[in-house]
């Protein structure tokens, strides 16, 4: 995960330290996208990478809200993947 200014990219990985990606067939990026929309957050997902480039006029509480909604969406998908045995 890296960014500069208000552009930031975040890779979703099965094992970040060992740089192991998720099996593409799991469509993890698309699942996070759908979960985020359910939580009231519109994301841009590129493969298994989430990118953030909000309006520059974003307020502190809206940044907080992005973090909260994203956290819930990632938890939703992590729970599902764990149940499917695809993620520990």
């Amino acid at each position, binding site marked *: *995960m*890296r*960014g*500069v*200014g*208000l*552009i*930031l*990219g*975040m*890779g*979703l*990985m099965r094992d*970040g*330290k060992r*740089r192991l990606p998720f099996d593409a067939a799991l469509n*993890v990026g698309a699942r*996070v996208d759908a979960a985020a*929309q359910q939580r*009231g*957050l*519109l*994301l*841009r997902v*590129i*493969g298994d*990478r989430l*990118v*953030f*480039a*909000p*309006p*520059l*006029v*974003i*307020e*502190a509480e*809206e*940044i*907080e*809200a*992005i*973090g*909260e*909604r*994203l*956290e819930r969406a*990632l*938890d939703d*998908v*992590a729970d599902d993947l764990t149940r499917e045995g695809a*993620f520990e």
Partner: protein
Amino acid sequence: MSYIPNSIEARDVASLVHMQTNLRKHQKEGPHVITRGQGCRVFDDTGRDYIDAVAGLWCASLGFGSERLAQVAAEQMRTLGYYHLYRHRSHEPAIALAETLLKIAPGPMARVVFQCSGSEANDTAIKLAWYYWNAAGKPRRTKIIARQMAYHGSTCAAVSLSGKPDMHAGFGLPFAPFKHTEFPHYYRRHEPGETEDEFSARMAQALEKLIQAEGADTIAAFFAEPVMGAGGAIVPPQGYFEKVQAVLRKYDILFVADEVICGFARTGEMWGSETYALRPDMITSAKALSAAMQPISAVLISERIHEAMLAQSDKLGNFAHGFTYAGHPVAAAVARRRSMRRSTSLRAPSASGRCCNRRSASSNRIRSSATCAGLVSSSAWG
């Protein structure tokens, strides 16, 4: 799924082709209809609100509604709702916007060419690179290099310039003169133990090898975004542009900075070229240029390019290029008002301080939420 007759969903599915969409799936699942916007939030037709974390398509830099810019547009439509820039005709909104852009450009730029979209800006910059080398008596310099996974637009040439195979598939693209060098995604592509600087050196070497293999005297230009947008928001690794620009200078290859996403403060400075010390021969700009409230794009050209264009007019009698709505007075007036405001506020120390604070708050909050879920790669946090 069957839609209620005459519902907005039924009307959409029966009438529209959607971009970057699985069209078969869309027939079944229908559209997500957005009805209004306020600040960073948009509302759908059920009244539900969403925070848009990517400003629509990286463009709505001032949010999704603006009374101030609405008034600028309305006033311009009453005064002069259309005129063109062909055959010596001109109008004040285009002149004023060009002046503003030259004033805030990240380096010395000589003139501005207008279009309506980022794709057209890159398409124009490709043509101008060819035009330049023709004027210079080196018409063999026709090949254009960009990076794998880069996105530079959707016209035939701009998508050929792009290095995304999914955007070439089914169209028989890219066109032959477009070549792609390595994708500088350090986290995913570095060798074990390879530092960012070493990785950047390897990327620059790969570029040089490609130039040599193709023949340096056949290369017209290299295109790059300061931060790759649709490639995945990829920040350049340490030392990358310094090394790449040295290779370009060595072989006298034009450098075009695609600032369509980065321009107008996305990287925390007015231009990504400032953030990464780029010295481009041309800059393409769109999206936040008008805060996405109007379709407009610009190519900023250096003296070197402009001199060649003048020489071509001496020879050919005409700069035979243009778009009907290029520099449209309403779009230009909106962009001018928007750029004036941004250029003032960005240069005020207090405002840039606020921008930095927001940046770190944003990153930290998003990072901590990502850690909680454990889905996000952490070793590349920097």
